[in-house]
């Protein structure tokens, strides 16, 4: 039995104040997520990822199609015992402290008071909020709210965790910690379904990804296969030695950036460039691949499939 089964989910929204027109935000999406895998839901902003999550959570109702989670229909509230959900940019009762908030959510799972206390302490520790446990949420930063959101999604040890943009609003350390949590969940045998518009997150974590663009599914599979990231070029940042000027060949190709130089070149030419730079006593600061952004990737996707233009206009109501 798949953990999540999506069958032709479609959602139209009415837009416009006076003359309502329908805008299709999710178009006939079908998808299966297996139990125990980390599944990445990829797409640029506005692709329909959040709409899909909200449909699965029963926050909004589909125009067409159905879905099953753990074999149960999505309007079966009892199934929610086994799932956790982190919404995009979560917001909580800001008059509560983090501890009270988590205790509140834990009550819906029917734990005893002692059990709740233990779980809250443990999960606060895990998301790195132990020191802020008794601070009211109105004093929380965006990153701290994100952590509190993750905490409430996993406090009851759900079998499936839905995370909508879990890395957003986090600093690099926070992102790393969230990655660790996700990988932890996998080792515990949980299913993680998370959405992101950041390619590297997906690459690093996912067993499989689905790519969504303008409400339509563009592909499902392992991240390497689906989002084959071509590294066009490498980038070297270097600093010339004091009093030395660059040889004209190098100066022509490199771009000065505040007393330093940036050189972009094909991967094959990397080592000869090293030699050139070393020859003039310059110091290499960094070498990194020039990557395609996801936006570039999607741009390419649309160009490759020009017939699949924006899926809209289900007509006027």
């Amino acid at each position, binding site marked *: 039995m798949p953990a999540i089964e999506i069958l032709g989910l479609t959602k139209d929204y009415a837009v416009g104040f006076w003359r309502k027109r329908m805008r299709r935000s999710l178009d006939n999406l079908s998808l299966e997520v297996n139990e125990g895998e980390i599944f990445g839901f990829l797409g640029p902003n506005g692709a329909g990822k959040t709409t899909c999550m*909200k449909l699965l959570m029963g*926050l909004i109702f589909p125009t067409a199609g159905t879905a099953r989670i753990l074999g149960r229909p999505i309007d079966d509230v009892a199934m*929610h015992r086994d799932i956790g959900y982190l919404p995009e940019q979560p917001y909580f*009762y800001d*008059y509560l402290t983090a501890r009270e908030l988590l205790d509140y959510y834990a009550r819906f799972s029917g734990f005893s008071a002692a059990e709740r206390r233990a779980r809250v302490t443990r999960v606060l520790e895990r998301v790195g909020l132990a020191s802020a446990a008794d601070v009211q949420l109105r004093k929380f930063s965006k990153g701290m709210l994100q952590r509190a959101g993750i905490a409430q999604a996993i406090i009851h040890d759900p079998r499936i965790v839905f995370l909508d943009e879990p890395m957003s609003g986090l600093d690099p350390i926070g992102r790393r910690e969230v990655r660790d949590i996700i990988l932890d969940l996998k080792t515990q045998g949980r299913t993680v379904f998370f959405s992101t518009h950041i390619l590297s997150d997906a690459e690093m974590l996912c067993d499989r990804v689905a790519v969504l663009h303008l409400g339509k599914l563009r592909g499902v599979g392992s991240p390497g296969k689906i989002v084959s990231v071509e590294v066009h070029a490498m980038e070297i940042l270097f600093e010339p030695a004091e009093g030395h000027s660059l040889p004209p060949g190098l100066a022509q190709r490199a771009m000065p950036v505040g007393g330093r130089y940036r050189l972009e070149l094909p991967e094959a030419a990397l080592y000869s460039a090293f030699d050139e730079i070393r020859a003039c006593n310059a110091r290499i600061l960094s070498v990194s691949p020039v990557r395609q952004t996801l936006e570039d990737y999607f741009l390419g996707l649309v160009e490759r499939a020009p017939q699949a233009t924006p899926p809209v206009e289900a007509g006027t109501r």
Partner: protein
Amino acid sequence: MSAMPRVVAINTFREAVRDRVLYNLVVFALLMIGAAILVGQISIGIERLVIVNLGLSAISIFGLVMAVFIGVGLVYKEIEKRTLYTLFSKPIRRWEFLVGKYAGLVLTLVINTVLMTIGLAAALLYIGRSFARADVSILIAVYFILLSLALVTAIALFFSCFSSPLLSTLFTLGIYVTGIFAADIRGFGALTSSAFLKGATSVVYYLVPNFRNFNSIAAAAHGESIPFSLVWQNTAYALIYIVLLLIASSAVFSRRNLK
């Protein structure tokens, strides 16, 4: 009450407390103290009347303001701030949430009213009266006020499910005022010769909750006894409307796409 609504209700009460809603009690206390001292000074033989009238009216008005202004935000605020996203990912049904929210505000109103009633009793003691049997009617009047507040809360909750706080406030107060004047509206219809108006005003009379049923402040102030039959009739009457409104609310809210 089953577990889910109770959890929501307690949290709703906690929110009201943390938002310093109960500070209105300070104003009420000052009002009662001022009135007791002033009335004690002039002593014209109507001390009890004045204190009871003023106290019960204040209990009713303070409660009404709370019921309407918190009530219209009960659901709307949670939708707007998207606090419902995480809540509804827990095993709670939408109607359970509504019942919890409703019970939470009613709990707040009950506690607020009980505290105000204690203040009223203290003011009566201050002006030098021991309590008598006739004072039972004051308690019944307070109970009737609570019934009307519970009903107003249900109306506000209903509108809160689909409309903005400003409009909900207007609608709720509109129904409240209509409910107070329901008898006059019907009387007005009876004066006309149009059968349609007669019928329409009668329909309004029986459809809109008749808030005048719950007003026994004057009887309490004059120390008259209130028949027991009225107590159960009013209780049943309020409960019927509350149940109807909660059914309507959950019918609306359960179908609603959250923002």
